[in-house]
C-alpha cells in the first residue's frame, strides 16, 4: 500500500511552470472573496480573464481532449493546477462543468466541436438547469417541455435553484419531449445558448447568498443540433452528468481549510488569559472536526484511486458525497460551539474570525446539502448500488468507463 501521491519529475517541472504563470499573472492581493457568493464585479471580470488565459493553455480543463479545447493532459497535471490555484486562492472557473462528460460521451462530433471548445477554452461559461419547482429530488418529474417544430425545438417552462454567480453563455438540462411517454424515456437533454429570446433570469435570495437563479423559458427556440443524445434519452444523458456530480471521480487532493482554520483558532485563542484548548470539550469538538474531515479525505482518495485504476465503482461516489454533505453540517455546529457568537460575524464586521469564513460556513454548509442531490438521494443511490433497494442500478457511463455512445 502507498497512500502518498508521488510527484514525478515531469509534474514537478509542470508545477514550476504553473506557479510561474500564476505568480506573474495574478498579484498576491488578488484573490477570491471569503464568501464566493459575494464576488464583486471587478473581481469577477478579473478572474474571468484569467480563466480565458488558462483555457488558452488547456489548463482550465486539463484532462479533456486537446482537439476540443482541453489540455490533453493527465489527472496529475490537473491536480498540480488545482493545488497551485488553491495556494493562491484563485477562484475556479465560473461554470458548472458537469455537462462536459455528457457531451463527451453522448455528443456527435459536431456537437463536441461546437459546444466543448468554447467551454473548455474558457471563452464561455455554462450553468446546469435541472431542478423545477415540482421536480427536485425526483428529477424525472420535470414538466418543462421541448416541442419539435420544423428544424427547431420550442422550449417552455422554468428551472430554479440554478447555481450561477453571473450569467451563462450556455445552459443545459432535460426537458420533456413526450408528455405521455414512459418515465425516464420521455425527455431530451438540451443545450441552450444565453441570451436567447424568451429566456429570463431572476436572482433568488437565499440563506447562502444571491448565487442562484430562477430561469423562465417562454417559447424559446433552439435548433435540432442542440439536442444531446436522442429525444428520449435525456434521462440517460443526465445520469452521466449526475454520476460525476455525485462524487464518482474522487480527488487526490482534498484541501481542508475549514479544519485548519478551526485548529489554528483553538491553538491561538485565549479567553481571560487561558488558552481555550485547555477545555477538553473544545478539544473534543476540534478533534472530531479533524477526524471527520480526514475520513472524507480518505474516501476521496479511495475514489480517485479507483477511478484512475478503472476499478468498478458502485456506492463509492455517493458515499463520499453523503459523508461530505453531512460532516460539513456537523463541523459547522462544532465550529459554532467552539467559537461561540464569533462564528456568526461576517467578513464585513470589524474583526471577524479567519476573515469571516466561519460565518459563511454557518449558512453555506446547510444550504450545500441540497445541490447535486440531497443526503436522502445519496442514501437512495447507495442502497440501490448495495442491491438492497427495490430498484437496482448500475453506475451510468462516464468518460472513464464508456466509449462514446454516438461516435
Amino acid at each position, binding site marked *: 500500500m502507498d497512500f502518498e501521491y508521488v510527484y514525478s519529475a515531469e509534474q514537478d517541472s509542470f508545477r514550476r511552470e504553473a506557479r510561474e504563470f500564476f505568480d506573474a499573472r495574478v498579484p498576491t492581493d488578488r484573490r477570491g472573496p471569503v464568501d464566493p457568493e459575494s464576488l464583486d464585479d471587478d473581481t469577477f471580470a478579473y478572474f474571468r480573464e484569467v480563466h480565458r488565459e488558462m483555457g488558452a493553455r488547456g489548463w482550465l480543463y486539463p484532462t479533456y481532449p486537446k482537439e476540443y479545447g482541453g489540455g490533453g493532459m493527465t489527472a496529475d497535471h490537473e491536480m498540480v493546477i488545482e493545488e497551485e490555484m488553491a495556494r493562491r486562492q484563485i477562484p475556479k472557473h465560473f461554470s458548472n462543468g458537469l455537462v462536459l462528460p455528457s457531451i463527451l460521451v453522448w455528443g456527435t462530433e459536431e456537437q463536441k466541436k461546437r459546444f466543448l471548445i468554447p467551454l473548455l477554452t474558457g471563452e464561455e461559461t455554462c450553468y446546469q438547469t435541472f431542478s423545477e419547482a415540482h421536480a*427536485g*429530488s425526483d428529477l424525472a*418529474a420535470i414538466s418543462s417541455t421541448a416541442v419539435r417544430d420544423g428544424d427547431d425545438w420550442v422550449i417552455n417552462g422554468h428551472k430554479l435553484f440554478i447555481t450561477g454567480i453571473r450569467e451563462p453563455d450556455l445552459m443545459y438540462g432535460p426537458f420533456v419531449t413526450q408528455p405521455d411517454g414512459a418515465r425516464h424515456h420521455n425527455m431530451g437533454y438540451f443545450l441552450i445558448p444565453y441570451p436567447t429570446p424568451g429566456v429570463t433570469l431572476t436572482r433568488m435570495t437565499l440563506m447562502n447568498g444571491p448565487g442562484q437563479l430562477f430561469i423562465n423559458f417562454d417559447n424559446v427556440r433552439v435548433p435540432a443540433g442542440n439536442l444531446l443524445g436522442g429525444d428520449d434519452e435525456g434521462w440517460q444523458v443526465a445520469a452521466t452528468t449526475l454520476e460525476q456530480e455525485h462524487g464518482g471521480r474522487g480527488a487526490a487532493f482534498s484541501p481542508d481549510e475549514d479544519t485548519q482554520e478551526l485548529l489554528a483558532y483553538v491553538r491561538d485563542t485565549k*479567553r*481571560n488569559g487561558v488558552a481555550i484548548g485547555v477545555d477538553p470539550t473544545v478539544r473534543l469538538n476540534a478533534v472530531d472536526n479533524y477526524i471527520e474531515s480526514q475520513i472524507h479525505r480518505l474516501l476521496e482518495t479511495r475514489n480517485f484511486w479507483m477511478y484512475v485504476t478503472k476499478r468498478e465503482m458502485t456506492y463509492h461516489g455517493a458515499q463520499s458525497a453523503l459523508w461530505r454533505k453531512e460532516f460539513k453540517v456537523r463541523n459547522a455546529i462544532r465550529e459554532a460551539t467552539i467559537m461561540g*457568537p464569533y462564528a*456568526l*460575524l461576517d467578513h464585513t464586521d*470589524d474583526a471577524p474570525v479567519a476573515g469571516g469564513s466561519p460565518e459563511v460556513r454557518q449558512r453555506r454548509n446547510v444550504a450545500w446539502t441540497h445541490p447535486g442531490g440531497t443526503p*436522502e438521494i445519496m442514501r437512495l443511490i447507495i442502497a440501490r448500488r448495495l442491491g438492497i433497494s427495490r430498484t437496482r442500478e448500475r453506475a451510468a457511463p462516464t468518460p472513464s468507463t464508456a466509449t462514446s455512445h454516438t461516435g
Partner: protein
Amino acid sequence: MDLALNETQLMLQSMAREFLANEVPKTSVRAIDESATGFSAELWRKIADLGWSGMAVPEEYGGTGNSLTDLGSVFEAMGEVACPSPLLAQVLAAHLVLGVATLDQRATLLPVIAMAERLFAVAITEPEYGWGAGAVQMRGVIDGDQVTMSGTKMFVPYAEVTDDLLVLVRTGDGATPEQGLTLVKVERDAAGIDVRRHQGWFGEPVCQVTFADARADVIGVPGEAWPGVEAALDKTVVLLSAFMLGGTQAALDMSVEYSKTRMAFGQPIGTFQRVQDLIIKALNDADAIRWTTYEALWKLDEGREDGPLAASMAKAVASEG
C-alpha cells in the same frame, strides 16, 4: 398535577396569536430583520400597548405582575412567527431591576420599563466571553452613586436603538469572581459610549458597545450585583426557550403539512421513512423543549430550589435540539 395552561394563559396566548397573525406577517418579519437597525419602533409601540412590557413588572410598580408561565405562553406565540422585538431585553431589564435595584430605584425604573416609555438593553458579555461571573472583566470605578467605566461589551441586543443601557461592570475584586460586580444604568447617548452593530449575525440585531470613561448610575448595592443578575438571567433564559419552542413547533407543523402535500416519486414525501424520521426528530425536539421549558417556568414561579437547574436544562435542550 395539571399540565394544561390555565385560563389566563390560554387567553393571553390566543390574544397574542391573533395580534401576531394580524400585525406580524411573514413579509413584515423579513422586512424588519433586513432593515438598517433590525428594529421596528412601530411594532414595538403596538407590543407595548398590549402591555407585554409590563407583564414581568409587579402591579405596585405599574405592571400586571404576571407569572413567568404567563409570559412563557406569550413568548411561545411570538416564537411561532419569529416576531422581531426587543421584548426579551426589556423583560430582562425588569428582572434585573427587581433582582438588584434599591426600592427607590425600583419605584423609578419599573414603571418606565412597564409602560415602555424607554427601551432598555442589557450589556454583560465581553470580547473574551463566557457565561460565568468571572468573564465580566470590564472595569468601573465607583464615585459616589456613579461609576466611571471603560471597556467593551459585545453581542448586546438592540443597543443601537435602545434608550438606556444596563451594564454589568467589575468595580472590585473579592475572594470569588462573583464578588465585586456592579450593575449600572446609562443613557445610550451619554458621552463616552460608542455603539456599532455586528455584521453577519442573523436574527436579532446585536452590537458592540465601547465605553471610554463613560459615567453611569449605580443600581443597587455596589459590588453585590451578581446574585440578582444570575437570578434574572435564569428567569429570562427560560422565556427565550419558550420563544424557541414556538419556532420549533412552527417549523414542525410546516414540515408535517409540507410532507403531506409535496409530491415526489408519485407519492407525498411524508410517506418516505427518511422524511418521517426527520419529522420525528423535530417532534421529539419540540416536545422535549416544551416540557422542560414549562416545567422550568413552573419551578421558577413556585420558587423551587431546583428552578435554576431546570432553567439551564431547558435552555440546553432548546439550544441543541
